[in-house]
């Protein structure tokens, strides 16, 4: 962590370097992506039987990885795209099984990320307390 402060890219002005280092900002961006994915999944499940409804999926991981490599994790784009699956008889293409798997994965990933953020705050707290 110490070497990070020495070698890291310049922090955006007006932001605190300890709380807005690349790791923290990346974690926050990932949590935003997961929150959006959860909302899109909820919308797909709500429209499970709506005739003609086209399911959508959130993709952000690759964008975030690219943004981190470019030292700009806050700029990562969250894409919300149609799944393009084949529709059934009523023109609806929601795949309930996949939505449930998505919801489970998203929940676990979210827990992992929020726990990681809490751990980082814990380290900072330890340092501050001396």
């Amino acid at each position, binding site marked *: 962590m110490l070497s990070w402060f020495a070698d890291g890219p310049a922090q955006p002005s007006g932001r605190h370097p300890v709380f807005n280092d690349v790791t923290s900002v990346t974690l926050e961006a990932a949590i935003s992506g997961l*929150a959006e994915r959860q909302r899109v999944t*909820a*919308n797909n*499940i709500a*429209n499970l039987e709506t005739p003609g409804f086209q399911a959508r999926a959130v993709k952000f991981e690759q964008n975030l990885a690219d943004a981190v490599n470019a030292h700009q994790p806050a700029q990562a784009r969250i894409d919300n795209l149609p799944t393009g699956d084949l529709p059934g008889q009523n023109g609806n293409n929601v795949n309930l099984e996949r939505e449930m798997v998505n919801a489970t994965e998203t929940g676990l990933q979210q827990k992992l990320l929020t726990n990681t953020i809490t751990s980082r705050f814990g380290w900072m707290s330890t340092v501050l307390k001396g």
Partner: protein
Amino acid sequence: MFEAIDTSGTGLTAYRAWIDVLANNIANVNTVKPMSGNAFQAQFAQAQEIAAGPDGIGRGVRVTALPLSSREGIPTYDPTNPVADAEGYVRRPDIDMNQQMGDLILAQRAFQANANAVERSTAMYESAIAIGKGI
């Protein structure tokens, strides 16, 4: 805040409305009316996605209309029925029980899926609320 739960809530409301409509249709499958009036008309729940907000994320589903089945129903010869006309005919409702029962399974399954989605979203928001807890 908590939009995912609101979205699943619209699903619960819509599928509950569908189940109510189906239950009413099934309850009236043997409702007989005189030929002088309309038959009991089965209802259908018509649903539509709620358009996405400015952030481009859909906000669930809503029941937009409850169209009715034919008012003629199925004229049936039943001379012993007290409401039968002079020729002995009554109007039975035009309800396809197979379709009603099939739809009931779909609606029930969709309702359960939405109830489940509420729980998962709740767990996610709880873990977000717990950030920094215990420090």
